């Protein structure tokens, strides 16, 4: 009986970047996992939580817990959504012992995609091939809240034909920050432009990240600047043959 994982694709992937979800499913299936998609899923509540709407975030988090309570593993193509679930759900249910038990149980089964591959599946080479020169953008939540740095790089190192160049400075915020991107649009835009300058300096033709929200911000800025650099989610790279 092949091990089963449930996909939590995130609302952003569901509505705007479905390719990322499909790529993730492809990679997992090729590794021998049975993949399911609980249809009742929507969002992790992060937009409300980060904007200071705790009550609304709690309601959405409660729905997430309902949807995924029976899943063995929940794989997420987003560092920020994973961090929301494993680091912040508990804050939303402070004082509610029963809910906190559920949070603990579900959160322990949630994994960001790259760490699922390296830590649970125990693989670094998924047999991918992509002839290209890329750089990697560390999303802030993945990097600082989840401590993810080497897992995606090890996976990329095994992609045949791929050259990875690191950015200098190494890790800087792309400026998305949820509603920050629209509340402080000019500032967010300035931060994005600084980041794409660093990307362009590497000479890479694509930038890879774990986070669809970063990719949206970065691609939006690249496109506006007329730069011919594309964005790829790690899942899309790993699904390439």
């Amino acid at each position: 009986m092949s091990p089963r994982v449930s996909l939590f694709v995130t609302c952003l992937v569901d509505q705007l970047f479905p390719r990322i979800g499909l790529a993730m499913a492809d990679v997992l299936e090729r590794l021998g996992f049975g993949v399911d998609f609980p249809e009742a899923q929507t969002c992790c509540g992060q937009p409300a939580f980060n904007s200071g709407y705790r009550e609304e975030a709690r309601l959405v988090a409660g729905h997430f817990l309902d949807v995924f309570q029976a899943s063995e593993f929940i794989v997420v193509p987003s560092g920020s959504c994973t961090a929301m679930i494993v680091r912040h759900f508990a804050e939303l249910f402070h004082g509610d012992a029963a809910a906190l038990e559920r949070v603990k149980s579900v959160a322990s089964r949630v994994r960001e995609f790259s760490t699922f591959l390296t830590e649970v599946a125990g693989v670094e080479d998924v047999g991918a091939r992509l002839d290209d020169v890329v750089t990697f953008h560390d999303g802030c939540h993945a990097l600082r809240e989840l401590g993810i740095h080497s897992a995606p790089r090890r996976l990329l190192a095994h992609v045949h034909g791929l050259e990875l160049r690191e950015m200098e400075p190494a890790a800087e915020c792309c400026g998305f920050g949820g509603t920050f991107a629209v509340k402080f649009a000019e500032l967010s835009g300035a931060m994005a432009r600084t980041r794409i300058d660093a990307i362009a300096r590497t000479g890479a033709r694509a930038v890879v990240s774990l986070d669809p929200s970063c990719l949206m911000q970065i691609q939006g800025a690249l496109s506006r600047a007329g730069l011919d650099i594309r964005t790829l989610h790690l899942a899309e790279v790993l699904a390439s043959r």
Partner: protein
Amino acid sequence: MSRAFEQKIHETLADGRLQQAIYTATGRLKDSRLAVIAEGVLPDYQELRAHANALKKHTIDHLDYYLEQFERNVEARGGRVVFCKDATEVSDFVLSLAKERGARLIVKSKSMTTEEIDLNERLEHHGLESVETDLGEYILQLAHERPYHIVAPALHKTRYDVAGILTERLHVPRETAIEKQTAIARSVLRQKFLAAEIGISGANFLVADSGAVVLVENEGNGRLTTSAPRIHIAVAGIEKLIPRAQDLATFLKLLARSATGQLLSVYTSFLSGPRRAGEADGPDEFYVLLLDNGRTGLLDDPEKRQSLYCIRCGACLNACPVYRKIGGHSFPWVYSGPIGAILTPQFMGAAHEPALPFASSLCGACAEVCPVKIDIPKVLLELRSEVHRDEARRKQNRLEQLAFRAYAWLMRHPRAYEMAGRVAASLAASDGGGGWVRSVPALLNRGPVRAWLSQRDLPPPPPRSFRQMWRQR
């Protein structure tokens, strides 16, 4: 956000030279710090941080005890402690002492606490001359400006700006060489040190078991301020306390490294009272003014209390991608950067600048570099939710409140969510051939969409959502 906040941000972003100055200066400080806390250089860095955090937590959680212990020890060595509720009590004390002693000239070393209470302005209003002696602060005093950065106050000034300020205010011939500008300031200030009757300093740390004031600096003006005049007054927030002199081994190891990438600052002074009998020099009188000015208000909430752990190293400013774009003067109060963003609403009330806690992408770089492990993003999130709870009570910002309530409803009703997604996609559908979207029809070009498009392109909506594609797999 307030017009003023928006305007200052906009002006700073539009000033190319200033952008370069801020980014470069903070970049250098950031890199210097990294070099001296690296694994190979300071292997117990994380341990030191954890220890410093624990010491600060312990001290703040029992602050009354340590305040009294400090007071006893200062007085045992011939000094005097004065508790001051606010700015007025500090300036009243200084003014009355100055009057009693016939003092007209005061020299000051760098102190954000005295900036906080506008001490110089108050003293000058009453006819005293109070001269800043830290080079950057002196230049800013001449220019009537606030510091730009906790550690690098004149970061925003070029040598040409400085030349103009010196010529205009000191009537010296124009001088653009930085070494010579420094020499001019040195010579002017030397006279002040030697003539001043009172020296006012801040305090980086107050040591409870010693009754001591610790001053950390690079120029020597702190030493001169506290050694040359007959009277030394240290003005310090009540949160500056640490329990024991020996704890300085931890805090001093962290402070200079975090602030400037030095192993230790050039001068660290440990001052415990007026000169002792027989000592060759030193002040005859020693006062420590312990300032509240709203700090007790921050003690109420155990989650936000950590805001008082700050040792004013400035590392969070250097790490912050927002500060590195908008600089110190965009912030509405004397404290800028991430620490300023959490202190300002707590001291001044959220209404002072309600948008301030939201001026962050929550990237967490600040929390990563804070030597005393203040969880700044956590406090920002707490402040954000307080702003909205307050708005809900006052029935303000109803549109946004409604929008998030609608969002929460939608996200618990998957079929409605899916429908809403399909409607939005069809509304936004373009014939752009799949490329990213530069502009949208006027009907859609509002609010968040408009704000997004002002800076970057939008992704084209895919023909089908993931769940639609999954069903057809």
